[in-house]
């Protein structure tokens, strides 16, 4: 019980700090690229306060329940991502023998939640964003499943705790070099960022969040950042050895690795251009999916050798 309370406290702390840090990094990268001066460390709080002073508008005949559920669900799934990650040996909020499967189920739930978010306002641009996301969200999930299974092979277990333990001698990022890059692309898609932001992009005036105002808008943006934290923690656990590391406590290592993954995803999101959906579908099915097969094949051969 004590262990659970400790782990839960760490999770809340990690999530809160991570959201703030992601928002600051996002501002820094975006302003640097646009050639402007950096923003203050408190800027995310100010921006959130603006939304909270604004009225929450209702569109005509919205699906109120699902509008709320999509935001709350997205935030919850982000927290679950963090909860399956071990903060140390036998220190995970959700210690599950099949945590990789559990996380995979969460990934597919995200497609549903983002669709609901675009569906609920009863408005055209939001809905276009919603089904366009489904078109991309489903195929990008396939490579993600293959690289996660590949990461599970050396551990001979679908438990993230075992997967971390199996990386004592060598991290998966070295053992399976194709895994992490492919998984980072999934991260861009799960967090609606840059080249994979087909739901909330500028060409739809914000897409699924075009009709969000006030607290709803704040909630959705926070949930997106929370998802970035959750995803980065899973990525650093599956590929960068999670809490493993010398001298410093394991939890500190996990946080540091998570921040590195997070910064990489944010940097990629500002750096890479977004192509039209049809072109991206071709890229995923014809190139990324075969590469993920290769990754799985490679992991299998290494395990047999």
């Amino acid at each position, binding site marked *: 019980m004590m262990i659970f309370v400790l782990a839960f406290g760490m999770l809340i702390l990690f999530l809160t700090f991570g959201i703030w840090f992601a928002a600051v990094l996002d501002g820094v990268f975006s302003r640097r690229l646009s050639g402007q001066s950096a923003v203050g460390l408190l800027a995310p709080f100010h921006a959130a306060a603006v939304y909270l002073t604004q009225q929450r508008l209702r*569109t*005509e005949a919205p699906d109120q329940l699902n509008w709320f559920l999509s935001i709350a669900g997205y935030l919850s799934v982000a927290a679950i991502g963090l909860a399956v990650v071990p903060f140390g040996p036998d220190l995970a909020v959700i210690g599950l023998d099949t945590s990789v499967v559990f996380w995979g189920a969460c990934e597919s739930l995200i497609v549903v939640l983002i669709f609901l978010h675009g569906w609920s306002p009863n408005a055209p641009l939001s809905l276009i964003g919603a089904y366009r996301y489904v078109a991309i969200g489903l195929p990008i999930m396939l490579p993600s499943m293959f690289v996660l299974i590949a990461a599970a092979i050396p551990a001979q277990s679908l438990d993230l705790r075992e997967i971390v333990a199996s990386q004592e001698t060598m991290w998966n990022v070295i053992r399976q070099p194709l895994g992490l890059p492919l998984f980072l692309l999934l991260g861009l898609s799960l967090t609606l960022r840059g080249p994979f932001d087909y739901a909330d992009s500028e060409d739809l005036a914000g897409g699924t969040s075009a009709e969000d105002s006030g607290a709803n808008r704040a909630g959705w943006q926070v949930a997106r950042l929370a998802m970035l934290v959750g995803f980065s923690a899973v990525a650093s656990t599956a590929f960068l050895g999670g809490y493993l590391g010398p001298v410093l406590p394991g939890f500190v290592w996990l946080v540091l690795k998570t921040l590195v993954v997070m910064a990489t995803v944010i940097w990629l999101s500002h750096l890479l251009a977004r*192509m039209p959906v049809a072109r991206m579908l071709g890229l995923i099915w014809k190139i990324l999916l075969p590469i993920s097969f290769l990754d799985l094949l490679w992991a299998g051969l290494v395990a047999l050798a």
Partner: protein
Amino acid sequence: MGMNWIAKLAAKAPVPIFIARGNDAPDETDKLHLNPNLSIVDTPRAASILLVAGTIPHALTAHLHRLHDQLPHPRATIFWHSSPTDQLSSALGVTHGDDLGSFLLQTRAALLTGERASEADVLPDEPANVWRGVGPHGQGGKGMMGGTPYGRPMAMTDDDMRDGLKLDAYTADFGPFLTMLPSGMILKITLQGDLFQKVAVVSPPYEDARQGREIRTLLKLLGLPALANRLLIENAHCEAGFKRLVTLSGVRRAIPPDLGRTHDGSDVRSRFEHMLNDPSNPQNLHLMGLGLGDLLEGREWQEAMLILNSFDNTSLRKICANTPTDATDDMGDSSEQASGGHEGMDHSSHGGH
């Protein structure tokens, strides 16, 4: 009146403004993106202040009022280089001499303290399509198909140009203040999913709608808003660092080949390249009767937006002139026409709140 702690925090944030461009929007409008005290947002739902830059033509004032009513409270409207419309008489005006940036900050502070009352709706808050209690189920539908269930025109079956599934043709007006469309332009679009099936011009873009904003809009549409803003800095397009970032982003490869090809062989890629390297020199395109339908029909949303923004304003107005206007368009019965007028997207629909 004092502020609570949330309002005090909010007062330190950049002012979120939505810009509605008139046909003579001042040149400095784009430079507002560089002002650290302002945040230019893409949807009125996120804005505190509606900035009307330049004169809105009389034909579009109804659209401006609908846009106004979509800002969340507390809200204010500022007319810049133009005078308030009769219905928005309580709005503020700013003329050439004043410093717009600090004026916006002051107005926002006054809104947060309650010194300045939030502006009321201009238009009556009523459904654009009457639907409550209509039809056999009382939700506005007409049985299996047709009608306006829950206020939106029913997506109907129609011939499909891509996969043969005859589904979901949905007609609505988009514009004139959408940030991804040239200012002043209203299109009546029939969409199947995000695929353009039919397009008609309701209102062409202003004569000086863009002032060289096409390349920045293209970069934004391609997911590179930071690079788009960087182009606002003097001579940024010649900088080695900027060129390296453009190459690194893979933006050239992101644009599909042969997109929006004209008779003389230019396509979105080549026009993008030209605008990037030689922004002050418009290209001479041979359009030869090319209409919007030829360019956009069968394209998905993002591609269509890229095509629209890859033409300079003169060419785009010529293309619009070659396109059937809404009045001559024969699609739809009267009920569809009526719904198309208001519906559309957030900027042209008065989503009751």
